[in-house]
């Protein structure tokens, strides 16, 4: 009883002290220490992001000085063996082409899955589909890569590339250089795998955007006698287009940075021109393939400089996606 009493008196004293000087609550030693630690940890993330840009630029400076930034970016020769001349254009081009093509292939199916789960499927089914789609994003890139090497690429070669190639050989010979060598490992296979891997990002943001469309919007359409599809087409999709666009840009960002599956399937050819079925390379794939074997300083520095170009490209795409999500105020689709 006595202890309780003294405790209560102590608490009352503390409260009185706090009331006299409310900001004291932030000035206790414990709080000072805690805020310092927390803010220090926060700052370390900021430092890491900025540090990444500086480190890549610094490590790549040897190559960037040698060839000039634009000379390096638009240089078409990548020759680590004889001339020691390095240009990033083949890889920059490869990254852009595969990423945009993958987005083009995956966009409408991904959009359809988002519409189906948000508008048509009953909650239990929508939940299952949602989990499975997120699982696609969770499958490690190397697992998709090994499947691509031993299953997808041979199958695509036998059922798609070779028949198309033979048909072109007989009827439209001018197509052959565009199609390229149908060996199975090349731009087309890498793009198909990329398309699969980026579906979850478009789908997640599409679904969020469609779910955030107000009910009145749909009811207005229904009241006019519109069918279910007409309501979606005319009332829901236009309202959700910002979120859908943000999802597409986010997917593009993922495609640009996707490394292992592409490196395992693209066939690795370091000079232009690329062809549809033939081998190619992207910025991440050339770093993976050559970094461990790079001996010359200039070669190593050129790979770092490619990393810097990749950093800039990813930065632009991510800032664009962030701007769109903020502008259209959709929740960032948290995907695994």
């Amino acid at each position, binding site marked *: 009883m006595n202890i309780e009493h003294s405790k209560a008196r102590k608490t009352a004293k503390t409260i009185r002290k*706090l009331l006299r000087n409310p900001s004291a*609550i*932030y000035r206790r030693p414990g*709080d000072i*220490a*805690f*805020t310092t630690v927390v*803010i*220090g*940890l*926060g700052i*370390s*993330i*900021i430092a*890491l*992001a900025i540090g*990444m840009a500086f*480190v*890549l630029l610094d*490590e790549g400076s040897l190559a960037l000085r040698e060839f000039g930034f634009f000379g390096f970016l638009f240089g078409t020769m990548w020759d680590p063996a004889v001339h020691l001349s390095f240009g990033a254009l083949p890889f920059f081009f490869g990254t852009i082409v595969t990423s945009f093509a993958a987005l083009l292939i995956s966009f409408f*199916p991904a959009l*359809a*899955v988002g*519409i189906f789960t948000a508008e*048509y499927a009953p909650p239990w089914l929508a939940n299952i589909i949602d989990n*499975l789609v*997120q*699982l*696609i994003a*969770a*499958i*490690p*890139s*190397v*697992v998709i*890569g*090994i*499947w691509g090497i*031993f*299953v997808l690429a041979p199958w695509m070669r036998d059922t798609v590339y070779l028949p198309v190639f033979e048909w072109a050989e007989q009827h439209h010979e001018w197509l052959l250089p565009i199609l390229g060598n149908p060996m199975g490992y090349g731009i087309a296979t890498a793009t198909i795998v990329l398309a*699969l891997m980026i*579906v979850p990002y478009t789908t997640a943001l599409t679904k969020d955007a469609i779910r955030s469309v107000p009910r009145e919007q749909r009811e207005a359409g229904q009241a006019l006698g519109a*069918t279910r*599809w007409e309501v979606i087409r005319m009332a829901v999709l236009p309202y959700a287009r910002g979120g859908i666009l943000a999802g597409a840009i986010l997917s593009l960002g993922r495609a640009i*940075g*996707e*490394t292992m599956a592409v490196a*395992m399937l693209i066939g690795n050819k370091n000079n232009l021109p690329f062809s549809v079925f033939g081998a190619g390379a992207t910025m991440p794939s050339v770093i*993976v393939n050559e*970094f*461990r074997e790079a001996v010359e300083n200039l070669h190593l520095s050129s790979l*770092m400089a490619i990393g810097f170009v*990749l*950093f800039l490209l*990813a*930065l632009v795409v*991510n800032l664009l*996606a962030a701007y769109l999500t903020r502008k259209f105020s959709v929740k960032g689709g*948290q995907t*695994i």
Partner: protein
Amino acid sequence: MKTMLQRNIRDRIMESLLVLSTIIVLLPLVIIIAHVIIHGIGAISWDFFTQELGSPSRAMQGRPTGLIHTILGTLVVDSVALIIAIPIGLGAGIMLSEYPDHKLNPLLRIMNDTLNGMPAILKGLLAFVLIVKPMGTFSGLAGGVALSFVMLPIVARTTESALMSIPWSIREAGLAIGLPRWRVVLSAVMPAAKFGLVTGILIAFARAAGEAAPLLFTSFGNNYLPNHWLGMLLGPTDTLPQRLYSLAISPYTHWHDMGWAAAIVLLVFVILCFATARFLTRQKF
């Protein structure tokens, strides 16, 4: 003017197209998982979990090989990554949610999102420059640091949203009974958000555990168990995703089979993390 019949037919066609697209998207997932199991199950044996890989001739001569060094290496590298990423990620998340008026928060949020959007391979290059170069050798430690760069922004972001979902009244209740602010955060807010926090860490872990690109230039790979128990931390170390890549691009069929088996282990691991994370988020509601 379209008739009602035409409009209804169109409605049905669009619905079937949506269903068809959903099936087309999900079919590869089923096919991939089925192929991984079919190809890999044969190579999973007692040896697979107890022997080290050794040189290619070891597999061709039929002597026992396995990936014990890879599995142990993965545990070491992933632990290092968690030890680094959890405190920093939680700290940044606490800063964003508990001190919402801090001047650095907008910058931290942008930088965190930027870091999250950066390709994992660049995080590997960063860890190479920061750790491998000064140390002069590839090491499990460097691999762990590289993976922690992958986890960090995810942990920070999920921590922020988990803590934000706790009502302010809980904080006010804590402050009203005279708790200092740090005790409010650690003893009232974080326990209330524990499912969300664990989910975030699991999501980050599942994501990082499957990454091979950053490990290629940091932990590098190793066909043997190290002689000394510190060897995994301070010397080249094998990890599952990176070993799977090396096995898949090797010219030996026996190694291809082991690659598929490694894919099963990796897939089971990632799906377990994923399912637990999903289960925990559902518990919350």
